[in-house]
């Protein structure tokens, strides 16, 4: 698994972004950028190459699902792996995310091991 990939964390809570960033660093990923919502994330995705997206579901302005749909609809971004983070593991949300092309999802609260497992699974490492 390539640990030099650039990972984008999208979450409206700065503390959660830092928590995920710290876990990613523990796992060995150093190349990390952040966005506070889907709108800011899309801007970032258009301006630089991002290899992996970790996005929260429940955000103001643009939800994680809306961001996922926008990413999958853009031919330059469509193949970017997308890990959805959610506090609600609702069946209908999971189905909607899978339909929209999510790579995997993780339910909060999660441990570093679980996040590592999900990323490894997506990247096929």
């Amino acid at each position, binding site marked *: 698994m390539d640990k030099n990939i650039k990972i984008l964390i999208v979450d409206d809570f700065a*503390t*959660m972004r830092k928590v995920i960033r710290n876990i990613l660093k523990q796992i060995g990923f150093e190349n990390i950028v952040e966005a506070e919502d889907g709108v800011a994330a899309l801007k970032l995705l258009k301006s630089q190459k991002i290899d992996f997206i970790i996005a929260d579901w429940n955000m103001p302005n643009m939800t994680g699902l809306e961001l996922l749909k926008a990413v999958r609809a853009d031919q330059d971004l469509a193949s970017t792996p997308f890990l959805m983070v959610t506090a*609600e593991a609702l069946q209908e949300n999971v189905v909607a995310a899978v339909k929209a092309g999510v790579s995997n999802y993780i339910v909060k*609260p999660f441990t570093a091991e679980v996040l590592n497992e999900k990323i490894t699974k997506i990247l096929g490492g």
Partner: protein
Amino acid sequence: MVSEDILPRARNAFKQALFEVMEKMYFVFLEPVSEEGLEEGLHAVEVGFSGPWEGKITVYFSPDLLFFMINNVLGLEEREIDDKVRIDTAKECTNMVAGSFLRKFEPEKAIHLSIPEYLGVQHLKKLQGEFTLTMEAERGRISAAVSFYRAT
């Protein structure tokens, strides 16, 4: 109003959710306290839920518990922590507790959460809700009040 027989199950689910979130995400271990002795200046966050059950969850964090949580996950010292970090931490924690609670309480039903709202620093004499609970950590306390508006 909800039927009385639901409340013990809901209370137990909430307690388990609180333990899970605080231990997994913030490395804080809680103990139930028999007396709900509320401290002054609690940071309060409210989140609504809707679907087959509707209501709201309000979580109250004592300042020293909030610092303990932030210090544990971000390694920040008191002087490095501003209001934004405090509010963010309290909101995110409440969001996770609410999500975990609803998953445990009604795993088969789709209940949606609102975006958590910070209510500011509050000085309470008593918690109001269908059920309430207070837990103590190594440093500080956390209290919660859960209200149901409607059950369909």
